């Protein structure tokens, strides 16, 4: 009986399983990386379609198939949690390092279209709010030079409000595939990563490897 139930549940097909795994890797990478990683918007879209499909499947189950309903629902809850957490973590990184992102086109490449719009709007409410601090003091602040007061794009670099990600923080990582050996800049130590190794390292040394998928954070 149980076998029949499980056999019937393989409808998600291989792509569904792959996408779920990919989401898990993307979510954990984003969670442990100190910087914002390149976006996975296509993956997100596929996941959302799969979620809709699953919700449809659940709705069509009848009351006798309670076990399947529980299992489908539980899986759905887990996927939704990962999706929400992924988007949340990215949003929090964006709000925290908003000024830093505005300064760098390369960093902005990592944002999805939605996130880019969010960044623009967030920057404008941030800037408006800070500008009001000086306006609120009536004429007292007027003589002060613009470089002191403003956080518009010309003065941004010197602003104390810019928060940069701490790339030197340590992260746990698992090696997905063998990598070319490389030397650490500080002490000339050669590092060779073999598939299956689990290491604790500074993020900046494995930055490129995380982004091309050779190493994943855990």
């Amino acid at each position, binding site marked *: 009986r149980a076998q029949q139930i499980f056999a019937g549940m393989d409808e998600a097909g291989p792509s569904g399983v792959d996408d779920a795994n990919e989401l898990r890797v993307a979510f954990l990478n984003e969670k442990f990386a100190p910087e914002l990683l390149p976006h996975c918007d296509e993956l997100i879209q596929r996941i959302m379609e799969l979620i809709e499909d699953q919700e449809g499947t659940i709705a069509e189950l009848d009351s006798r198939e309670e076990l399947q309903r*529980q299992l489908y629902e539980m899986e759905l809850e887990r996927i939704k*949690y990962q999706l929400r957490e992924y*988007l*949340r973590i990215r949003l929090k990184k964006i709000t925290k390092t908003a000024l830093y992102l505005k300064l760098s086109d390369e960093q902005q490449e990592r944002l999805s279209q939605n996130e880019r719009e969010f960044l623009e709007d967030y920057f404008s*409410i941030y800037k408006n*709010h800070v500008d009001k601090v000086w306006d609120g003091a009536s004429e007292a602040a007027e003589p002060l030079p613009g470089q002191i007061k403003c956080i518009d794009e010309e003065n941004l670099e010197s602003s104390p409000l810019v928060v940069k990600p701490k790339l030197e923080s340590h992260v746990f990582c698992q090696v997905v595939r063998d990598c070319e050996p490389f030397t650490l800049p500080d002490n000339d130590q050669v590092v060779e990563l073999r598939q299956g190794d689990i290491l604790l390292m500074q993020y900046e040394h494995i930055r490129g490897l995380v982004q091309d998928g050779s190493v994943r954070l855990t």
Partner: protein
Amino acid sequence: SLSLPPCVEQVSLMSKLEATRVAVELLRDLKRSTWLPPPQPEKVQGVIEQMAALFAEAQQISALLEETGEPAGSSPWCAPRVCMMTVVRLRNCLLAYVRHRMERIEEIRWDVAGSMPSENLEMLSSHEEQYAKDYNQLLSTYFEKYDLDLTRDYNPPVHNKIRVNVLTEIGQFVGPESGRDYELKRGDSPFLRRGDVEHLIRQGVLQHHV
């Protein structure tokens, strides 16, 4: 030896600790409060006025030194430098104060996932109330793009349905996940879908019965 004009003497005697006293007080009050202290616009005004005064002083001294032909890099030129450095320091303190308050406002929007409780609203200046509204609007717009409320599911789900104790009377409400109508009275212990009641548990109205 050079006899320094009186204003230069004055600056070198003025304790720079005094100049940043009010700014430091603002920051210290932030550290001491549980969420945020009330606005204190007079102190903010005071800091800005101090910045303006120091800036004016720096300009005055620079003009004087230009006039008397002091060579650049000689020690009297430290005086306007010190003034400007203090101005920058005051600005940094002020911006840290403002930004910290902004971050707390953002934090509470995520925690409460709804409109801000009145006891917190009281602690905000009118500009900050506007910021809270703007940020709320920004988040709502973003959530709509994915049709996902990102303030739900803060913890990995363990069970689909949980038993909760109703601590305060809620009455009727619509569960955000299932869309069903519920009516909860104080003292009930119903077995409900986690997604429907998660926000009420966070608000403290329901208690998860383990």
